[in-house]
Each structure stands twice: as structure tokens, then as C-alpha cells.
């Protein structure tokens, strides 16, 4: 089997300090960046910190920036690089560094808890729910999310603006909301939350999130843009005035 030697520039450090260190690693056919990191751990730097679990793109643990691009290390094959190329591996920049490739992603867990949960219509008399596959498909797209937080990492609303974090949920949680709203049986109105706390208005649709999504979810086109359009409808000044005089329109049950 062909073996190639790569120079890996891996970020080593902890909050406040750190730099890239070079590791020369033998790479065999089929290996991914995560395999290379594991090889460094096993042979050169046992304390090199990184997260991982499934090694198959299903758990979203091994997020990092490879040559500056947010990616899952387990799904980044080494054969996309030129033999002999130097490859940098850095932690996600949007979150505070814990150590090496591990960041403090608690921002995401805080935002997750804020989203108003599902409240379903009552079941049919036989205790079962009936939903058509076509209706389920729309929401299922967003249920594919593996919470790798790469979309959060790349989102420039928060990547370079710590001050936006309190009032912005980030793409991950905007599509979480979209998924809840598209649940065929959900009854909750999240529009105030989407505007005031999730901060959908801060997104200016550069689609960076969609580009890095390893699940290929159409975050912007199918999630955020329709949400922005609904917000715009709700706050159309003419509609607002009409409502003011006629009373709010009754939503169909």
C-alpha cells in the first residue's frame, strides 16, 4: 500500500496561548484527517486533545478547521491533498479554546435550551398520530443535523462579533426552530422568539453555513430565508396598521 509522508501543522495550546506545531506523519491509502490525528496521539503526542466518537460523520464531534476550512476531521480524506502538502489543523475559532483542538461549545447548549419546545395537537381517537410522508419530509431535512456546530463556527455574525452572541442563536438553532415550525402537528408560535431572541434579522444570507454543512442541509434556502419572509409578512407596516384597526386575524386552528 502506498505510503506518503505529510507535514501536519496542528494547533497546540490552551486558553490565551498556543501555536502550530509540526508533526511528520506517514499516511496510507484511505486515511482521513482524524486517523492522522490519532496516529500523532498514539506515537508522538499522547496528550493532543481532540473530540471524536463515531468516525463516520454521524455524531458531529470532530469539528475543526482544516487548512482554514471548517470540516469534520473524520470525513476529510487525506487524498484530497497534494502529496507532500503541509496541512494545518486548528480548533473552531468561534468558540473559546479549551485545549488543542477542543473548544468550549457551551454557547450552543445555552441556545438549545432557549428554543420554545414542541407542543403537539392531540392524537387521533385511537391514540395515534397521522402525518403524510410529504409533510414529514420538509421537517426531516432539518432533523438530519448532527450538531457539529460547523455552521455556527463559520457564521460571521458571531465568528468575529462576540457582542452578537447573546441575541443570536446561529444557523444551527434557526433550523432547529424551522424544523419545529414545520412539524405537521406543532401548535407553538415562535415568531417573537425568532425575532427577538434568535435574532434572525442579523443573518444576511451569505450562505457560508450551507456551504460547510456536512449533512448538506439547505440551511439558508429552506430554513432561514422562509423564516425571514414570514417575519417580513408579520411586520409589513400595512398589515400592521390593518390589524391595529380590525383586530388581529384569527389563525386557522
Amino acid at each position, binding site marked *: *500500500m502506498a505510503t506518503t509522508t505529510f507535514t501536519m501543522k496542528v494547533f497546540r495550546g*490552551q486558553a490565551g496561548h498556543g501555536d502550530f506545531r509540526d508533526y511528520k506523519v506517514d499516511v*496510507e*491509502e*484511505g*486515511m*482521513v484527517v482524524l*486517523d492522522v490525528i490519532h496516529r500523532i*496521539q*498514539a506515537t508522538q503526542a*499522547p*496528550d*493532543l*486533545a*481532540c*473530540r*471524536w*466518537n*463515531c*468516525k*463516520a*460523520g*454521524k*455524531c*458531529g*464531534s470532530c469539528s475543526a478547521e482544516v487548512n482554514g476550512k471548517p470540516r469534520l476531521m473524520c*470525513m476529510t*480524506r487525506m487524498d484530497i491533498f497534494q502529496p507532500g502538502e503541509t496541512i494545518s489543523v486548528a480548533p473552531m475559532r468561534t468558540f473559546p479554546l*479549551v*485545549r*488543542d483542538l*477542543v473548544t*468550549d*461549545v457551551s454557547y450552543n*447548549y445555552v441556545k*438549545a*435550551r432557549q428554543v420554545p*419546545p*414542541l407542543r*403537539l395537537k392531540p*392524537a387521533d381517537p385511537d*391514540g*395515534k*398520530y*397521522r*402525518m*403524510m*410522508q410529504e409533510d*414529514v419530509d420538509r*421537517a*426531516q431535512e432539518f*432533523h*438530519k*443535523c*448532527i*450538531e457539529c456546530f460547523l455552521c455556527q463556527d463559520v457564521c460571521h455574525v458571531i465568528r468575529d462579533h462576540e457582542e452578537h452572541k447573546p441575541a443570536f442563536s446561529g444557523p444551527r438553532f434557526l433550523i432547529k426552530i424551522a424544523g*419545529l415550525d414545520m*412539524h405537521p402537528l406543532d401548535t407553538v408560535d415562535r415568531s417573537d422568539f425568532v425575532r427577538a431572541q434568535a435574532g434572525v434579522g442579523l443573518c444576511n444570507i451569505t450562505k457560508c453555513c450551507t456551504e460547510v454543512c456536512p449533512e448538506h442541509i439547505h440551511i439558508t434556502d429552506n430554513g432561514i430565508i422562509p423564516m425571514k419572509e414570514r417575519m417580513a409578512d408579520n411586520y409589513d407596516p400595512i398589515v400592521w396598521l390593518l390589524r391595529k384597526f380590525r383586530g388581529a386575524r384569527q389563525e386557522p386552528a
Partner: protein
Amino acid sequence: MAKTAYETHEHDVLVIGAGGAGLRAAIEAAAQGVSVGLVCKSLLGKAHTVMAEGGIAAAMGNVWPEDNWQVHFRDTMRGGKMLNNWRMAQLHAQEAPDRVLELERFGALFDRTKDGLISQRDFGGHRYARLAHVGDRTGLEMIRTLQYHAIHQGIDVYMECKVERLLKDGDRIAGAFGYWRNTGEFVLFKAKAVVLATGGIGKAWKVTSNSWEYTGDGHSTALWAGADLIDMEFVQFHPTGMVWPPSVRGILVTESVRGDGGTLKNKDGQRFMFNYIPEFFKGETADNEKEADAWYTDKKNRRTPDLLPRDEVARAINSEVKAGRGSPHGGVFLDICTRRPADYIRKRLPSMYHQFKELAGVDITREPMEVGPTCHYVMGGVRVDADSTQATVAGLFAAGEVAGGMHGSNRLGGNSLSDLLVFGRRAGLHAALYAKNLGGQLVADSAQVESIARAMLEPFGRSGGENPYAIQADLQETMQNLVGIIRTEAEMRQALATIEALKERARKVRVDGGRLYNPGWHVALDLASLLTVAECTTRAALERQESRGGHTRDDHPYTDDTWGKVNVVLRLRDGAVQVSREPLPEMPAELRALFQERK
């Protein structure tokens, strides 16, 4: 010596593990109004459940109205070669449909039938299409649903926290001691009841579908705390793991590929499973391709042998490869591309399509996959009371993979996710009731805590000593080669000797660096549990002198009825693992009758 510094948290119920079983247990305990802590080794939502693919087995009858709990019970017992705890199998079959509907109430969106009900798919060993599913990412849907339900129930979640030992007050559980992986600082949990939901032991083998987390923590801590383990000889090698490229060897290829029409072939293009139908399953298995293919749409036909229980299929693949009829990289072919249209494959098996495309450069809608057995699941575990899930230590409960008995000698696909929900709920409920009824104050022994903490820090700065990764790799190699799919006494004796030597090496392990998020240290700490479960499996496997389910002996190739009446039980006495045989609970006559009705 200075007293060890640690933070302390107190809960009525402490749930260790936040996969399907742990989350469901925590939700149920919180619903009982007690204070609940939930500890997870990884971030929340990353536990092994997330990787489950096929579905949740439940006799809902949405696709085949003929299905009911009795049929599911019968399939489960036969799949486990009748060694299952009958009461667990009964509760599981009876309660699974309600647990699936409940998950839907929590927000899960399953694939639908034409009538808008939850769709169900075929799987190995199940008489009817029975698995509620979401494409081939059912586990992801399940863990997200439970996770997002749980975070609104007032449960305290401790992420990236590892429990090293359980603490006791006299004969009762009193809490647990561990560390934050993030900071390396110690943490003490005081708890009246502890639910173990820590999953399995697969990281003791080299080729495995299991992640770094699966180091048998729950099995070992329970054993060390005085609890019994049963059935540890039964380890499931899933027949279809990826075999190429080497770096992905062992990653799971869902049984849904065969459930949805895929078939196994050798290098000559022969559907070899027809040559491996055991006597036990002859009556219900098709012996020709025509009938096998007709079974998918008409259940009056007998089931395709591609969907025999996993132990049978794994052994068959093993034999084909040994006979020189395997694929170029030492597996066999799994073909769905010639049997189903590309659109169907992409819709039903999206993550398999993705996984092979990205990791192996194989388009499964145009080429066959190469697959081979991979260590996947341990049937054995903590011996529990079927109804309450309580272990043989008061205040200790166990649910999911870490519990033993439910699956007998071999688990059917799809029965794991349902097991997590059924027994996760029961564990949470009974742990909460136990905690509520427990009067007085529990005191965890502080001298015990001091000695655990000291031992945990010893590898730092040890001069000489070995890299923990090397010891882990040697253990994996040993278990793979000597306690794998096919076992013999001589090889297992050799394995035991090697394990003893590895224990000695582990006592001198050296860790470089500090306590802050140090994977080398984490691997070093996990060695104790990994070596313990490896020893347990090997000792139990030596004891059982027959072949059954996930335990095949080359030197005892037949299934023996006298062994069908006993569990191999392991317990720690005076620091040594003691092995005994104890009778299975006896199945009542009305359930026994279910096995006489039909071949």
C-alpha cells in the same frame, strides 16, 4: 497527605450515560419529582445511540396487522437461542409500541405508511416488518428527540464527565466519584440511587463499530461495587462492517441494506447464505432465491436467509472468507445496486450512500459494498430484576446495553433501541421510587474517595512506564485474535495470561502532560475497565462449553440443552473474578406454549 480537592453534587437519582437508555431514564425519574443528575462521557447528544441506523423494533402492526407482542416475544427468544430472561423479553415486546408512540409525542418524525402511520421495515430474525425508522438514521432521531425533551425537565446535565467508581454506604449505593474530562478536576456525586446506562465494551476488540467511549465502564464499576454480571461470553459480531479502506474497518453497515432487499454474495457471485441455514431456523427460512425474494412483499413465503439472526450471518461470512471465497479486501459482497433502483437506495439508505461515497469512494447504487464482521454489541451485562432493573446491589439500576439478560445469547437488530426505551423508562421510574422510599442519610466513605483519587493521579510523572495507547492496542489485538467470533480453550487460556500481563503493564502506565483535557490520561484511566471486561468475557467464554448465539467454540461446536438452562454468572470475591453457573428463570407455561404452536 493533603486532602483531595473535589466538587460535590447531590441528587436523588444519578444517571450515568446519556444515550437512549440514560436519557429515557432521566426523563422518567424527573417526571417522578425527584432531583436528577445525568452524567455523560462525551457532549450531550453524541452517545452511541446516535450511530444506530436501522430502527426501533415494536409490534405496532402498522404494516402487518398480524403482528403482536407474542410474535415479537417469540422472535426475540428464538433469536437469543432461548437464553433470554423471559420476563425481560416479555416486557420489552409488550411495552415497545407505547414507547415508540411516546417518542413520537416527544417530537420524533418517523417515516410514514401510506395511511400516515409510522412505517415499519424488515430486519433479521423478525417475522414481520416491525422496525419504526427514519431512513437509516433512526438513532439520531431518537437521541435528538430525547435530548431536546430532557433539557426542559429540570435535569442537571454533567457533560464530558467520567465516573471512575461507584460509592457505597454499607451495602447500599451512595453515589459515584469521577472527573471532568475538560479540566481534569475531581467530582463527587452523592446519590440515593444510581442508574447505569453506560453502553458496551466493544473497544476491547480491534475491529469494532464502537467508539472510544465503549470501554465497559458500567460493567466494571458494577462488578467492583459487588454486583453480579451475567452472559458476558456473548458478544455480537455484526455481520456487516466496512472492510476497506483499513482506516474505516469495522464501521457499521446497517442491516437495513438487507432489510430493504440487499443480498450477500461471495466472489463467485453466489448467494451463499442458502448454504448456511441452521436446523433451528429451517422451518421459517426460504431455501431458494425465488421464495426468498418473494418474502419481501408477501410474508406467506419464508424469510430470506440473508436476514437470519446476526450470529448466523457473521459465522457464515467468516466461513466464506476462510474458504477463500471472499472479496479482495477480506470480506464478502453486499449487493443492493442490482436489486433496487438508485432512487430507492438513496431515499431509504441515505447515510450508507454518503458513508461509502465519502469514505470508500464506492457508489452503492452502482457497485456492491465489501463487508465483514465487526464487534458490535455485548449481550451480557449487569444482572437485573426484570421489572425494576435493579442490580444485585441495593440502589443500583441498569438499563440498555450494560444490562444483561434481555437478549440472551444473541440480540436481534432493532431490539436495542426498543430495549433502551422500555428499560430506560423502567430504570428511571424504579430508581426514583427507591430514592423516595429511602429514609435517613447516606454517607460515602471519604477514605475510599481519597484512595481512588490518589490512584487516578499516579500515572502522572511516573518515570519509565509505558504509553497507554500501546497497552490498549495490545489488548485489542489479543481479544481480536484469541476471543473473537470462533473460540477455543487453548486460545482463551492464552488470552487470560496476556490480560494478566497487560494488567501488570497498566499498573506502570505513564501519562505525559497535565490534567487539562488530556486524552492520554483518559485512555490510561479507561484501561482498568477495559481489562476487567476483557477478563470477564474470556472467563465466561471458557466456562461455557458449547456454541450458542454470540459464543462459538471450535472445540465445542454444538448447542447443548443442559447449557441452555444456565447463565454464567460473574462476581468479584476477595479481589478475584469468580465464575458460577446459575439456573435461568423458568418461563411460565402460557408463554412456553407460544413456541409449540408453529415451527
